[in-house]
């Protein structure tokens, strides 16, 4: 079973081996999850391809009943940002229209996902950690958000949505699809933290909201383009990332 294998990596594995390190990170996520998440995760992992999961060659797509199970908390920040590759909203090889933000709601509700990962772009202390959406560097943004597994090429477009909601949920390991690169924050009940794919260290406060009408409003959006390539595939993450993760597991 995956958990037993990963526990071995966590306890006495050679963390200079990246495959072992990924397993150890996954086990830490399991260990640091609330009991009800551990139980559900263990059920899900019966018979799963452990190696495939760690290398993002296999996946687990949490269904509606497995998502949004973290603590529900009042969302008090001024704005929550949700970032999405623009082509997922509407691929259009022509002129792009400008909309009212609320015009995007219907499209967001039709996305192929059950939860939206959001962040207020502040750090663990609640201080702004990134420039505003019209100025932030796209590569810095996606690294800080921990959007692992994708190669972003120069010219690729993202849309950043500014949203408001009265409540949100702390993200769980299930929401992430049992990702090794997700970061549990066991001491903090009210928010999670992304793990920067550049530094390997905790970066931005994050939550999830269910992708349902009435949960959030879209108040603004920004279309941005990557000005350089940014490769965030698992086997392309830099040494600093892996070193920081290893030090976190074995200080």
């Amino acid at each position, binding site marked *: 079973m995956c958990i037993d294998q990963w526990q071995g990596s966590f306890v006495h594995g050679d963390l200079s081996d990246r495959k072992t390190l990924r397993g150890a990170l996954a086990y830490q996520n399991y260990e640091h999850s609330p009991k009800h998440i551990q139980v559900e995760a263990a059920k899900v992992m019966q018979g799963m391809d452990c190696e495939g999961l760690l290398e993002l060659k296999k996946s687990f797509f949490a269904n509606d009943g497995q998502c949004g199970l973290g603590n529900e908390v009042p969302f008090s920040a001024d704005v929550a940002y949700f970032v999405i590759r623009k082509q997922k909203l509407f691929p259009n090889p022509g002129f792009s229209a400008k909309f009212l933000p609320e015009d995007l709601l219907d499209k967001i509700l039709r996305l192929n996902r059950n939860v939206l990962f959001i962040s207020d772009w502040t750090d663990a202390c609640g201080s702004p950690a990134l420039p505003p959406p019209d100025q932030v560097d796209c590569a810095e943004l996606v690294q800080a958000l921990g959007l692992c*597994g*994708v190669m972003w090429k120069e010219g690729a477009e993202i849309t950043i949505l500014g949203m408001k909601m009265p409540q949100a949920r702390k993200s769980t390991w299930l929401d992430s699809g049992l990702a090794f690169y997700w970061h549990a924050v066991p001491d903090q009940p009210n928010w999670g933290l992304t793990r920067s794919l550049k530094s390997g260290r905790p970066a931005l406060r994050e939550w999830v909201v269910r992708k349902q009408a009435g949960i959030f409003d879209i108040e603004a959006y920004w279309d941005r383009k990557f000005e350089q390539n940014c490769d965030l595939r698992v086997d392309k993450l830099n040494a600093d990332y892996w070193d920081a993760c290893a030090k976190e597991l074995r200080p």
Partner: protein
Amino acid sequence: MNKQEILSILRGERGASPNMGIEEDDLLANAFFDLSDVEKEAFWPELSDAMKSLVADREGMPFYLAARFIYGMGEIKPPRLPRKKSLFNFLLDAMAEKDQPAQLAGTLLTLLVLKMGKPEFWGRQIAASLDSLEATQDANYAMAAVVYAFLGYNRCTTISATDWSRLFSVLSRLPSLPRMEMLELLVGVEKEAKRPGELEEELDVGLGTLRTSIRNNEESTRIDQSLAPVFKTWLEKNEPRQAIAAWLSKELRPGGAERRGLSPRRFIERIGAERTNQAVA
């Protein structure tokens, strides 16, 4: 990278994680970027074969994701699109059925990206996509297909009043108007229209014909109410050229649709429609 590997990715067998924003076209792009230049050239015939298989097996979503992958390759710098467009000639013959909106949307998106298809082809797609939207009420893929069909035809020639009328008619019967797609359609058509004056005329006659054919005031009001916010956003945020801007301003004026003057062509068509309605009554 061969056809089977491509199919495996598109069918979701290789690590997509939608909640984290990773879908099958992202994974295909990841794999594509790792190929050498020679392998990239060899990739396109394999993708073409994979898409043929998906059509044959009626796998609409994987097919659409393949199309979205191609679109993505057109957007990056530099674009990485197939040199031999003939590999995708089969799309010009593969007519998706009404209940296959994802396949139709994928087909038209691919052809739009690759700039393929003659006017007659795109004209047929307007009818086919509106049939599909009417049949499935699918605001996602069927509406996307409608947008692509209009944009594709618009590249060749002016869209007729009949097609505009049918579009507005079909849209009026959807549970809710897909505003984002509607704006993409209108803005895209206007920006690429070679003769904005003709576009304005065809839009005006098309919408006017629809209004004339509707006897039920409530339904007519509902159509106007659902289009008004779209027209307003088109005018105020998308800087249409003068002819269209003037038309939109008149449309948005209270009672504007009734008060505005008619060109001779519109007058004749309106009289014809009124006489037909009277004969039917």
